[in-house]
C-alpha cells in the first residue's frame, strides 16, 4: 500500500509540534499564580433547589463590602412526617448578590437546614434533618424561617440574618 507523502509529512509535523509544546509546558511555561486557599469550607449546594422560571437576573446594587438580596417566600409550611419532608416555597431571585441557607425552626429547634441556595434558585420541598420527625406531632405550630446569607465568592457569612414568622402544619 502506498502511503501518501503528505500524510507522512503531516504526521511528522504533528509529532514535532506536540513534542515542542510538551517541552515548553514542562520546562518553560510560566506557572499560573498559585491560587489562594479558600478561607472557609464551601457549603454544599441544596440538592432540592431548582431554577426560577422566567427569572430576571439583573443584579441589585450594593456598596463595596456590602450585599443586597431579594427573597420570595410563602409563610405557610407543611411537614409530612411519613415522608420526612417539608413543603414550602422560598426563592432567591437572580437579582440577589448573595447565596442563602435556609432553616425551619420551631421553638429554637432546627428541623430543616438547606445547603446553599444560589441566586436564581428556588425550593419547594426540603428534607427534615435526621431524627427531627420524632420531635413533632400532628398539628399546627408557629415557627420561623431563618435565612442566612453568604458571599457567593468567599463563602463568608453575613452577620445579618432574616427571621420570617411562618405557620407550620404537621401531618402524619
Amino acid at each position, binding site marked *: *500500500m502506498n*502511503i501518501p507523502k503528505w500524510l507522512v509529512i503531516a*504526521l511528522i509535523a504533528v509529532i514535532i509540534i*506536540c513534542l515542542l509544546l510538551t517541552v515548553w509546558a514542562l520546562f518553560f*511555561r510560566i*506557572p499560573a499564580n498559585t491560587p489562594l486557599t479558600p478561607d*472557609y469550607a464551601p457549603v454544599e449546594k441544596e440538592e432540592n433547589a431548582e431554577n426560577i422560571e422566567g427569572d430576571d437576573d439583573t443584579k441589585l446594587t450594593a456598596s463595596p463590602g456590602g450585599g443586597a438580596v431579594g427573597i420570595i417566600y410563602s409563610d405557610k409550611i407543611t411537614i409530612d412526617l411519613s415522608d420526612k419532608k417539608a413543603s414550602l416555597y422560598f426563592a432567591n431571585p437572580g437579582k440577589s448578590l448573595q447565596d442563602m441557607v435556609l432553616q425551619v425552626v420551631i421553638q429554637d429547634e432546627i428541623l430543616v437546614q438547606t445547603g446553599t441556595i444560589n441566586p436564581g434558585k428556588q425550593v419547594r420541598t426540603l428534607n427534615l434533618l435526621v431524627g427531627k420527625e420524632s420531635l413533632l406531632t400532628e398539628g399546627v405550630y408557629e415557627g420561623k424561617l431563618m435565612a442566612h446569607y*453568604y458571599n457567593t465568592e468567599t463563602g463568608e457569612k453575613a*452577620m445579618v*440574618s432574616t427571621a420570617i414568622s411562618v405557620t407550620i402544619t404537621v401531618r402524619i
Partner: protein
Amino acid sequence: MKTSNKSFKILIALAVLSVAAMVSSLCLTGGREVEFTPPPFDADAVAGTPSVPDGFGYGEFWQEGMTYRFSVCGNVTADGTEATLYFTNSEGNEVWLKLRVLDKGGKILGETGLIKPGEYVEKVTLSGTFEAGTEIVLKVMGYEPETYYSAGSVSLRTKIGE
C-alpha cells in the same frame, strides 16, 4: 517516497503518544482550583482570660446580630514584627475564631491560628515592621466547629500604637 506499512504504523503510534503527552503536560501545568484546607489552631493559644496591662484598650466587642463575642486590644502595639493584641475568644461562644491583621488596602499583614472559646493569644507575627500610626484593620473571622463553615466576620479599624 515509499513508506512501509510497519513504519507508518509506528509513525501513527508516535503521533498519538505525542498528542497525549502534550495534552497531559498542558493540563498538569495549567491553573487549577485549590481545595479548602482547614486553618490550623494557634500553637500559642492559652486557656483562660489574659491579664492585660493598662493602656492597651482591651475590651469585649459585641453588637446586636453578632453570633459571638470576642475581646481584643484597641491599642495594638508592635515590637519589631510582633504585634500585641490579646485576642480572646469569649467563653460561651460556640464558634472558633481567628484574627487577621490587614493594611488599609486589604493586604494581609499577619494572622493568628484558630482559637477555641475560652482561649486567647497574646501576639501575632506581622510580615514586616510598621511605624506607630500605621492604619490597620483587625478582621475577626468565625468558623463553625468541625465543618469550618463561616460564622461571620467583623472588621475593626485601628492603628499601630506606640
